[in-house]
């Protein structure tokens, strides 16, 4: 449908106002909210995610596209709830203790939401106790841990050890992300998966909930 394509195209350009108008119009044309979400909003976000991975667009482009997506999803929320629309899985995400970098983590969040996952973002500088509490409270399928510094990447290990101590390790899959993180580090600390970039993190999370 042309209007869904228009939503996707405008979202890719971060044109929030146009996206919102088109979503309203699609709803009043009687298009199903789930179809608008998946074939319009998420389609656009996935295309941007792919381009970001290939360095064809940069962080600001992703941020404004995600902003348009999130506000578009807001418009669909009531309809989606009425129809018992279930997200594909739930992720708890944060940047570890002592680390204040949030842009990378936000990108991961946006890419995951673009894949139809529900993401609970705990924020930055989150310690292992707070993470354990969040796992108990939200019972997510996946825990995403971000660390941007070589001084803080060790905290990912601390979190995994805390999950083991509290008997929660088997209940959640752990993905580690961040510029200094490598696959061998992920293995060494006992994470389930490593992702080299935000798009891959979203793909990996989706594969873990599927």
């Amino acid at each position, binding site marked *: 449908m042309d209007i869904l394509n228009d939503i996707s195209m405008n979202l890719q350009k971060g044109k929030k106002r146009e996206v919102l108008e088109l979503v309203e119009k699609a709803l009043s044309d009687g298009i199903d909210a789930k179809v608008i979400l998946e074939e319009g909003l998420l389609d656009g976000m996935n295309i941007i995610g792919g381009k970001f991975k290939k360095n064809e667009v940069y962080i600001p482009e992703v941020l404004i596209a995600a902003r348009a997506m999130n506000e578009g999803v807001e418009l669909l929320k009531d309809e989606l709830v009425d129809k018992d629309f279930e997200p594909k899985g739930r992720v708890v995400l944060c940047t570890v203790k002592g680390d204040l970098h949030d*842009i990378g983590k936000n990108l991961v969040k946006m890419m995951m939401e673009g894949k139809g996952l529900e993401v609970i973002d705990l924020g930055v500088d989150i310690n292992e106790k707070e993470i354990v509490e969040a796992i108990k409270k939200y019972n997510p399928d996946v825990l995403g841990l971000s660390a941007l510094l070589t001084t803080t990447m060790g905290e990912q290990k601390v979190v995994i050890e805390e999950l083991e101590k509290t008997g929660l390790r088997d209940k959640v899959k752990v993905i580690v992300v961040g510029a200094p993180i490598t696959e061998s580090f992920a293995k060494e600390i006992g994470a389930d998966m490593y992702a080299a970039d935000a798009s891959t993190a979203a793909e990996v999370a989706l594969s873990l909930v599927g």
Partner: protein
Amino acid sequence: MYKIIACNIFKREIENILDREEIKEVIILEQGLHNTPNKMKEVIQEKIDEIESEDYVEEKYKGIILTYGLCGNGTLGLKTKKLKLIIPKAHDCMTLFLGSKEKYQEAIKQNKAIYWYNHAWIDQVPMPNKENLEILREEYIEKYGEDNGEYLYEMELDTYKKYAYGFFIKSPINNDIRYEKFLIQACKDFGWQYKILEGDLGLLNRILKGEFLEEEVFIFQAGEEVKFS
């Protein structure tokens, strides 16, 4: 004699420490490679390979010194074929500007919400302060329009507001007061506390001059891959 691969952030320090002949053996790389650790590794490896492709390289040089620490793990996995590779035991350049990894550990012990400044960073990078953010805001608005531009600017501003401290490392070779003033103003702009730390170039000096202490450097033999434990 050693071949040196250095980050541009140390340009002034290197010019101060080494003599004219020694400087000829220094390859300076652009600042900011740590932001993309994989690319950083590629760029440095390429330079190592270039150096090692020279004739009689083993007779000419005793080894290759990097003025890089872990730097986002951009040095992880590097490998030489013929020469030793010497890498400072440091997370990043702050250790080298401060003079020891112990001083760095001490500084971040209480709180890691620190934004670090020094003369080289202020000269080479648009370090956060109100003025530089304002420039960024205008660039965003020009590129992405008023609404999205403001949004991106606000996100940027929020990031800096999460920090609690601005730390300034005083340079023994560049005591221009405007750098310190820059830091103090930035701290006012973002509501941070500030702290001035004394820099010390002893560590960098020893490393550049080939004086290697076990507690200060990793030495990797030819053929050995760089790993940190």
